[in-house]
């Protein structure tokens, strides 16, 4: 398949490429949001651990 005809997708480029672009966005969002969620949970857990250590240390 020639490069120009590949990108043209037989006249369906305006449907095929947005389809793949949106799939890329969804996959990227899933990975980003999952990692962000885990980092936020780790921060909350760390803060809870620090607070409990501080509470034990108090007279």
């Amino acid at each position, binding site marked *: *398949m020639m490069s120009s005809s*590949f990108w043209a*997708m*037989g*006249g*369906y480029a305006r*449907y*095929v490429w*947005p*389809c*793949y672009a*949106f*799939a890329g966005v*969804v*996959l990227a*969002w*899933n*990975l980003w*949001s*999952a*990692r962000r*969620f*885990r*980092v*936020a*949970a*780790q921060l*909350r*857990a*760390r803060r*809870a*651990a620090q607070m*409990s250590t501080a509470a034990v240390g108090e007279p």
Partner: protein
Amino acid sequence: MTVREIMWTWFYKLASPPYVYGVSAALAPWALGGAALAMGYGLIAGLAIAPPDYQQGEAVRMIYVHVPSAMLSLTVYTLMAAASAVALIWRIKVGHAVAAASAPIGASFTILALVTGSLWGRPMWGTYWAWDPRLTSELILLFLYVGVMSLRLAFEDPSRGDRAAALLAIVGVVNVPIVHFSVVWWNSLHQGATIVRLGAPKMPGSMLWPLLSMWLGFMLFFAAALCIRLQGEVLNRERQSTWVREAVKS
């Protein structure tokens, strides 16, 4: 130790939050690597090597994204309902964590299936949307995902939210066979089952292998995203536990 005893031991291990946290952390990179390989092959083969369809032409290439995302939307919902049932029946809290972690991923793949289906429908059916049984039941699936997520957050007591969301997830699973068989039970614009059907797939190997590879890639990607999200869910739910304190200190 018999196979049955090994199975039960493994099942009970899955009820342990530290075990699930550790397994998720270990599995996530492997699943992500596998997903990249499978999707890489699927993309190259689907976009450049597979032949165009004799009726749909090059528009058929959209199925390499649409079909795996639609299949995943149903698989994830079934997993979410099964995890909810395990959580309610055996009172295994990790089940609620799995269900909560699955819901946003499943909802995003349902949106992807609906959008890519619309993009395929415009040149093939002449419209982006039709109130067709398959499309409508898939849209209901999205509403169910949104309902499960909203219900979980609607209660002040998280355990009540978990139980209410689990009940809705279990009741809503009735929609999964409706989505799958809608093309058989009613007159539908949507084509019938091509892969998941009795008998051999209706597709030639040159199109089937890229599609199966993309499906495997999407499944592995879901596994990776679930593992990462599940670690966060477990940490949120167990942050007062000693093992979490030790884990975050290290």
